[in-house]
């Protein structure tokens, strides 16, 4: 068979709306943001190449605290969600009585926007929320516990885990459902107990799915705006929140661009690290 040119005119025309959109809008806006972070194409003031915006962000304690906080939230949320979702995914591996209904209930947060989700959870964990009220009435605590706007950010992590559980669950369930029953039976037959099967069969075989889930969760939580603004600590703000403050309150569009570039670069770095790690895990297979 003669070798065909993989990109005929028709192919290019058909790809154009999709790929062209991404290349044009996303590509141009990323380029602009990067240029703005160096003082070019400024929306306000003069345009001039300079490192000063990078300097002022990298030397500001607030910005670095925000970066640290966002990294912490990204990491804890991704680990936390996977830790909660993995046992659930194992539980849903086999159909059983009532599991259909349970599965639907778990998926509810998937259809609730992040901001709304944050407000819903607010009712539960706020200072005068349901949990504190119940614990007080039961006499288990003498004064309400601060679970929201806590300085560490546990409130944010809790909402991230709850909100993204169904999404991560879907990824993990598809990873686990590809593991054959025979493989599990073989391991049991060879003497493996529950924990051995979990650590030697389920987790390694589901690893590609686990990594994908963790990376997507990290990106979501790292760049989060709504949940942190509702449930996050008074200080520091997340990088995305700081970006908004910079641009809208301080009118520092170039510094906001620097923060935007930091988010993008961090995301790319994480994806790169993931693919390296995936290669290591998969080996030469």
């Amino acid at each position, binding site marked *: 068979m003669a070798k065909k040119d993989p990109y005929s005119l028709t192919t290019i025309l058909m790809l154009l709306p999709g790929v062209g959109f991404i290349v044009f809008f996303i590509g141009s806006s990323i380029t602009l943001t990067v240029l703005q972070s160096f003082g070019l194409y400024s929306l306000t003031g003069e345009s001039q190449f300079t490192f000063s915006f990078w300097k002022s962000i990298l030397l500001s304690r607030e910005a670095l605290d925000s970066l640290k906080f966002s990294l912490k939230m990204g990491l804890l949320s991704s680990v936390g969600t996977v830790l909660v979702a993995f046992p659930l995914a194992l539980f849903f591996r086999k159909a059983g009585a009532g599991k259909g209904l349970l599965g639907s209930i778990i998926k509810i947060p998937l259809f609730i926007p992040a901001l709304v989700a944050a407000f819903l959870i607010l009712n539960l964990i706020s200072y005068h929320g349901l949990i504190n009220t119940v614990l007080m009435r039961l006499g288990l605590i003498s004064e309400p516990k601060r679970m929201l706007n806590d300085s560490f950010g546990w409130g944010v992590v809790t909402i991230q885990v709850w909100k993204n559980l169904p999404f991560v669950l879907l990824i993990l369930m598809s990873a686990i459902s590809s593991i054959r029953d025979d493989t599990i*039976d073989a391991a049991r*037959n060879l003497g493996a107990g529950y924990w051995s099967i979990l650590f030697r069969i389920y987790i390694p075989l589901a690893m590609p799915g686990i990594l994908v889930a963790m990376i997507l969760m990290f990106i979501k939580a790292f760049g989060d705006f709504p949940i942190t603004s509702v449930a996050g600590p008074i200080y520091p703000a997340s990088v995305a929140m700081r970006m908004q403050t910079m641009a809208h309150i301080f009118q520092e569009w170039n510094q906001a661009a620097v923060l935007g570039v930091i988010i993008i670069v961090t995301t790319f770095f994480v994806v790169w690290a993931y693919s390296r790690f995936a290669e290591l895990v998969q080996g030469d*297979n």
Partner: protein
Amino acid sequence: MATLRLKNLVKKFDEVVAVDHINLDVADGEFVTLLGPSGCGKTTTLRTIAGFYYPDEGEVYFGDRIMNNVPPNKRDTAMCFQSYALFPHMTVWDNISFGLKMRKIPQSEQKKRIEKAMEMLSLEDLGKRKPGQLSGGQQQRVALARSIVTEPQALLFDEPLSNLDAKLRVQVRVEIREMQKRLGITAIYVTHDQDEALAISDRIVIMNQGRIEQLGDPYTIYRKPETRFVAGFIGLANIFDAEVAAVTGNICTMNTSFGQIVIDATGQELPAPGDTVYLSFRPEDMKIRDRESANQITGIVDQVVFMGDVTDLFIEVKGFKMRAQSDDEAKISPGDRVTFGVSPRAFSILRR
């Protein structure tokens, strides 16, 4: 190594009785095959022995010990699956060592056993490969190595050869049998392939609808089937109705739709005159040059099918279709009128 006993074993799935009061004693080092059509309960029986299913009634014994509630990982059996069920993320070496690691066998002993098993199954050069890089035959040999290194009480095979091509199937089944004999491990083998069962087993259990139809060595199962099902399931058989006319010693005279025949029922349960029974005999028992036998059957050749080593003949005998075999030197063509001799010893009397 151990003896294995199933006592009144029953396994139900909801209302469906998959295994229906099975009794079976397997001697130490014996190779027993469970043979039957799909849905006959053979795999369920095997999985109950392995511990993947718990029996609803009856007992599973290894030696004198009741195993009913012992989980599969504590049973010390080793199973070979139809899908091989190798761990796709582990190398051949790690696959084989899995059972040894679970049993916390010391490293040096592990190495010794794995190397021995790999040598036995000619897997020496494949230790670092992953299952995905192996052919079906190689994967099956890795699965075998993985089951024998743990020196289990019983080897369990669940149609291990059905994913291999015909030639390889014969080769691997010889390997399985030789290995089992050498190691002296009790083996239970499930298959729906009668050739495999006849070739490999010390004894065969023919199962049908959750029950045992017949239990015996391959020769007895083939030559002396006891039920209509067994006669029809194993090999080719001519099966027909007969009425017992007379019984003299072990010699029975029978009336059939194509005339009177004489049977030597030595070793079989004798019927009484007036009983109606099924009779069966094998196509290869119709001897075209046999003029001596008491039973001479004449019919018209309907079809001749050349099969290579033998020629299959379809013959119409007074409205009854029979199958016979001949060598090609007989030069028979459709429409020929031929007479066959069938020895009185060739017939089996089947329970109704």
